[in-house]
């Protein structure tokens, strides 16, 4: 019974193609069959066409490019690539071993890594102008009760010299309680303005500013891979907190 249940709740990867459109959907779980939320899922030959899993481990991608394979990436799990041709039906990710273990031998110190990061920040992240399509969901909760949900599909234009500009392609919003209906009466789209802070070059957190590094304690916690690239894991904490 357990095997049947496991098989039925395992990855469901269905691919359908019509009019040069490909739908990739399914779910991602760990070796204990638990859903993995916020796992990056993307098409290998078009990495910008991707999504992340929801809390139930489910994802949905629509692409106008035929996928060669699908990549599943999460910082706590080993990256896995599922072939498009074989229609892989069981994507289970294995937990990484010692992914945040303390590094005893370091080629670079934590500060050295940060200095290299600051030195190349402009080169790596000063991207402008750039256009994105974006799906965003905003969930509002009052006293543990969902009272409003908004969803938008947007056309975005990002530049470091001004705020991100938006056009809405499609959207919906709905209140779900008496409190939500009261709020919704005079509701505006101002909630979208929070997306402007996603532009990390324009709205830089303090730790990303070289002159403020002295305010932080830093620790190099180890190495990992994310989206098929090797990376350092750094932890930071403001000395005053």
């Amino acid at each position: 019974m357990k095997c049947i249940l496991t098989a039925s709740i395992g990855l469901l990867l269905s691919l359908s193609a019509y009019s040069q459109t490909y739908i990739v959907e399914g779910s991602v779980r760990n070796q204990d069959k638990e859903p993995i939320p916020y796992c990056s899922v993307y098409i290998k030959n078009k990495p910008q066409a991707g999504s992340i899993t929801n809390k139930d481990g489910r994802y949905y991608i629509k692409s106008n490019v035929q996928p060669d394979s699908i990549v599943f990436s999460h910082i706590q799990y080993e990256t896995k690539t599922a072939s498009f041709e074989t229609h892989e039906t069981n994507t289970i990710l294995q937990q990484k071993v010692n992914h945040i273990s303390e590094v005893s031998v370091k080629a670079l110190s934590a500060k050295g890594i940060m200095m290299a990061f600051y030195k190349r920040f402009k080169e790596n992240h000063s991207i402008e102008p750039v256009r994105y399509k974006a799906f965003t969901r905003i969930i509002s909760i009052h006293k543990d009760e969902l009272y409003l949900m908004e969803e938008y599909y947007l056309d975005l234009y990002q530049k470091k010299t001004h705020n991100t500009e938006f056009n809405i392609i499609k959207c919906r919003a709905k209140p779900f309680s008496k409190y939500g209906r009261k709020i919704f009466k005079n509701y505006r789209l101002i909630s979208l303005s929070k997306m402007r802070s996603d532009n990390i070059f324009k709205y830089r957190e303090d730790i990303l500013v070289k002159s403020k590094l002295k305010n932080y304690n830093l620790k190099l916690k180890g190495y990992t891979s994310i989206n098929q690239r090797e990376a350092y894991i750094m932890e930071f904490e403001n000395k005053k907190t």
Partner: protein
Amino acid sequence: MRDKGRLIIDRENFGLASAEFYDKKITLFFKNKQWYINNVITEFTSMTGNCSKRISIYELQDKTIKLEEKSPIMVEKIKEFLSDFNDEFWKDFTHIPLDSVYLKQIKY
């Protein structure tokens, strides 16, 4: 507010691949020697106890021409969506399926 978190920094070019701050997690992806936004998750609780959770996925476009905003959308009112609030609405778009925990609350 706890100013602490985690940075994931690329070993090859020292670009920021992912970052977790006190109220935000952002993941980027590498293309054409630069890092672009991939997804962002935020959670903010106000002094009154209201909690706002946002999840956004970005898809980089090849074109870079300026976007002409159709209207100052931030001040626009939005109409209530009157149909069933389900994933079918987004079947023609890349999206994140609704969490079952919210689907239960939506139905009742």
